[in-house]
């Protein structure tokens, strides 16, 4: 590789890494407990024995009424089901467009309607960590900023791989020399761990960046696709008396056989326009349970309006979520995800050490050239 080419890639790697390293450290550290968010939430909940065979599901309208009795004056926003527990959650808020941080949630036994004691999803330590991880408590600008850091991370990985070539041209894969100099030991460690985590880190970084544009993508989907159906109701106020939720879900189940409801959005929440229930159906495989299929039910008549296909960009967004969270292969995958997260922290810390002990750019470029020609470095 030409010296000028090495220097260009070295500078790209150096500056993209430097700009994003501290934020990446924050993302890796906060991401660690978030991998186990479900397990931590269950630990925090009071232990309740699940009946071996739960009774038939209680009427959904009664469930909503029970939830509203917990939060008088609120309106229902979303309801959803946990396929692995016999529970149903009801999000409520003061207005139909209440943002998530201000929502109040009731968790109910699906059969009996008993209120299950559970922490609010938007309170507590885990929520604090989640906000730090996703938007630094800055809302959309914070999210987009973190997305930019994720993209810089991807560029740093690719430029690091390009520099790995000349470094390793005369070394066996996995070479780790700890006896010559501390700097060489850190450099080898950086190279070994960096190249082993390469594919995983690239996917997690890019899918993380995609997740940061979830809100703009959802807004685009709302205006493009759902706007088409909303246009039929132009000039009509949002209905105040709604058709039965139970009937809406039953209609959706009949319209999408073989699928189950994941969650339902009420009119005005931003997911199904002002005049529809949005019943979001999911399949039964790890893949299809991520790709929601919306069924729009007229919120006044309870009749089926449409089953729009999700646009490609929404499918990409939905698929990028598990690939970022690592929550789709049970506990062993989560543990391995956490180990790879720790290895990524090691790459970041070793990179920071190498920058502190850097010397000047020309010396580093000469070091890479020498490694390519003779196998010697540092």
């Amino acid at each position, binding site marked *: 590789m030409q010296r000028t080419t090495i220097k260009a890639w070295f500078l790209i790697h150096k500056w993209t890494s430097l700009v994003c390293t501290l934020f990446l450290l924050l993302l890796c550290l906060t991401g660690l407990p978030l991998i186990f968010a479900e397990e931590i939430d269950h630990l925090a909940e009071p232990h309740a024995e699940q009946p071996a065979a739960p009774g038939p599901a209680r009427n959904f309208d009664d469930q909503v009424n029970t939830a509203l009795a917990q939060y008088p004056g609120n309106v229902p926003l979303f309801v959803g089901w946990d396929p692995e527990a016999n529970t149903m959650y009801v999000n409520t808020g003061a207005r139909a467009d209440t943002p998530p941080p201000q929502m109040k949630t009731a968790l109910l036994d699906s059969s009996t309607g008993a209120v299950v004691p559970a922490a609010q999803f938007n309170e507590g330590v885990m929520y604090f960590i989640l906000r730090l991880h996703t938007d630094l408590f800055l809302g959309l600008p914070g999210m987009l900023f973190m997305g930019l850091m994720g993209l810089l991370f991807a560029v740093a990985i690719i430029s690091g*791989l390009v520099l*790995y*070539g*000349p*470094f*390793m*041209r*005369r*070394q*066996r*894969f*996995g*070479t*780790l*020399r*700890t*006896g*010559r100099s501390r700097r060489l030991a850190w450099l080898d460690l950086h190279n*070994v*761990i960096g*190249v*082993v*985590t*390469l*594919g*995983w880190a*690239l*996917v997690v970084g890019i899918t993380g960046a995609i997740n940061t544009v979830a809100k703009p993508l959802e807004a685009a989907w709302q205006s493009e696709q759902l706007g088409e159906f909303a246009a039929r109701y132009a000039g009509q106020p949002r209905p105040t008396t709604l058709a039965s939720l139970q009937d809406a879900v039953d209609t959706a189940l009949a319209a999408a056989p073989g699928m189950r409801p994941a969650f339902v959005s009420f009119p005005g929440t931003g997911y199904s326009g002002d005049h529809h229930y949005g019943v979001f159906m999911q399949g039964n*495989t*790890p*893949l299809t349970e*991520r790709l929601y299929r919306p069924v729009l039910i007229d919120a006044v008549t309870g009749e089926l309006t449409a089953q729009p296909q999700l646009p490609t960009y929404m499918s990409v967004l939905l*698929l990028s979520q*598990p*690939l970022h969270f690592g929550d*789709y*292969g*049970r506990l*062993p*995958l989560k543990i*391995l*995800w956490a*180990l*790879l997260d720790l*290895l990524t922290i090691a790459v970041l810390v070793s990179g920071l050490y190498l920058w502190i002990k850097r010397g000047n750019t020309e010396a580093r470029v000469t070091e890479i050239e020498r490694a390519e020609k003779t*196998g010697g470095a540092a």
Partner: protein
Amino acid sequence: MSRPSAPNGSPFTAPAWIAAASVLGLVSALVGDGIFDVVSWAVFAALVGLVVRAWVKRTR
């Protein structure tokens, strides 16, 4: 300390295999349960194992 012997082939061969295996591990658990989960676990455990192996075989 012996001088490193130049390995045959491109230095990018191993990273290419690792990247391909990573994609397999990432996708496998997404398309199914059971054996598909096990493939994912095996791939990522092998990646962690590569780092452990490098550490065990380090030259002092």
